[in-house]
């Protein structure tokens, strides 16, 4: 049986990749995908702990997270499309209306 620490490490790596992706990518679609990576890292953690503690609760949470993630992507992509139509770019550095 694969030890718990493997899952946690995998989750940690995925999470870090996601965060770094969000921070350094300039393409807004890439940022959205990185956010999905973060969510999936959390999901892996949930499922792993659920399995090792013999409790179904964690897996239930995962379903909620997936549902929310799907909804979030819908809204997020809609915003991206609107933003792209208005500015003709997907580079977040150019969305700087809120700058001082």
């Amino acid at each position, binding site marked *: 049986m694969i030890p718990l620490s493997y899952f946690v490490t995998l989750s940690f790596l995925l999470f870090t990749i996601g*965060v770094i992706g969000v921070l350094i990518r300039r393409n807004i679609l890439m*940022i959205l995908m990185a956010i999905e990576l973060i969510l999936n890292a959390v999901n892996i953690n949930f499922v792993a702990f659920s399995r090792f503690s013999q409790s179904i609760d964690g897996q239930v949470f995962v379903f909620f997270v997936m549902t929310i993630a799907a909804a979030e992507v819908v809204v997020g992509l809609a915003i991206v499309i609107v933003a792209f139509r208005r500015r003709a770019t997907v580079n977040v550095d150019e969305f*700087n209306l*809120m*700058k*001082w």
Partner: protein
Amino acid sequence: MAPGLLWLILLSPLIASIIITVLTRKSGRLSALISVGAILLSFFLSLGPLAHILAEPQAPPTEYFWYWLNLPTLQVKMGILIDPLSVVMLLVVTGVGSLIHIYSMGYMKGDPGYSRYFASLSFFTFSMLGIVLSNNFVQTYIFWELVGLSSFLLIGFWFEKPSAADAAKKAFLTTRVGDFGFMIGIVFLYFVVGSFNFSELSASLKQGGFPETLLTVAALLIFTGAVGKSAQFPLHVWLPDAMEGPTPVSALIHAATMVAAGVYLVARSFFLFSAAPDALEAVAYIGGFTAIMAATIAIAQNDIKRIIAYSTLSQLGYMMMGLGVGGYTAGMFHLTMHAFFKALLFLAAGSVIHAVHTQDIWEMGGLSKYLKITSTTFLIGALANAGLFPLSGFWSKDEILVAAYESGHLLLFWVGIVTAFFTALYMFRLFFVVFTGAPRSAEGHGKHEAPHESPPVMTVPLVILAFFSAVAGFAGAPGLEHGFASYVHFGAAGHPAFHFSIAAGSTLVALAGIGVAWAFYSARLFSAERLASRFSFAYRLLQNKYYFDELYFWIIRNIQGGIALFCNWVEEWVVINFFVNGTAALTRWTGGILRLSQTGKLQTYLMMFIIGIIGVVLLLLATFIPSQVVAVR
């Protein structure tokens, strides 16, 4: 009597005032009828409580009330208090008021503000009845201010005249000074005794146990309100100026009712003043001083209404003096009699003004030939004011003098005697100059044909008032078992015994005053002008009313003005420039620096967010984990 009818006494003038304002503004005649009808209704309804009191003089006061404020710590009961004192005042206000309303229909005829006049008059009547019927200090204070407001409206009735507008402002502001003290006094009394209600206060004070100093302070503060409203020294300056209003208003507000409200207030809170004898002394001396001061000023004035106004001041001082020396019934008796003869004098003066269109007595003269009814009734009023036997003023003035004498205030007694002399002097100076002799000034009458008597709507009230001025005094005559006093006394003494020597003495003094007036102004045995130029300093002092207006103006301009300038400086530099503008500048400056953090880049925000989270996590690790580790070990 059903409580509903009592409320109707109070409310019918208010309803009339509202109807006139809202509905019948266009029709002056209808408005006047509504207003007169409302006060007549109040008058006839007031006869009910009168009959009740006459039937049972010893019945306890009746009170109807509802809770206006009902908190555990504070209860204010609004309501109506019917006792002999309020019934007397009720009859004076509605009775004399009715006659003045009727008189106004003739006097104000053709004025563009006819409806407005009657609306204000009805509103005034409502406010005044509110004071009279009130059963507690809070309600009294509310109506006290309403009376001040309606007085303001009526003095400034011809507001297009700057002098009238100024007089209205002066009256309002001067009485406000007193009202402020009154308000503090009410609250102060509440904290000392714990009630606003007259009967409760009276009962608590009868039990005693309150520090006299505090009661004296409360009584003096409440007396300030009376000083303002009754135009006592030092707040007397507004009343003569208030003569800018229409003459019936002067008769109603500034002679018969509103200015008497101060006297009524002292009488109403007499339980407080008798518990604080020092305050009562102050009342007596302020009253006495006002009486003699105003009487001397009246000698040197030339405006018919101002002379009567100073006479009012003087008589109000007399009433205060009467109350102050403990003559509770004497003061109230004089108030009632004064309401009759002073309203009569004002209305007769109004009739004169109506006929000759001037107020300067030196432009009148010989008017008794033309104005028979007016001059006869004026003569009765003047005799009553001077206190000649057997007219009403004689009895009431005599009682005050006896009260002063018997309570041992000899100084005040002599002040009263001297004032009686001056009173007779100025009243008959006025009478002789206006009604006897030859027409004096060509312009005075020349513009119009011979002056003609006023219409019956004006002369009938004069005759009725003259009748009461003549005979009402017998209500307090000696030998009557159920005189005025046996009804009005409020646990205080009744009529003092009749002193023949004092009565005779005051009559002689009054006759002497009339004689001097006759010698100077009718027979011309001496020349008033020569006397005036001989004692020009004294004459100028009197003619300029002891320079009170100038003194107050100086105080206002220099002291109050200086304080205002300083406050203005503080406001401009400290409040506005330092605090307000300073706060704005500081905010703008901080904002200018902090806005640099708003890069507009998504990733910068996220970076800060993540750094924040990492910081929090590290902090949690640093604080919680070691202790757990220690616990595990």
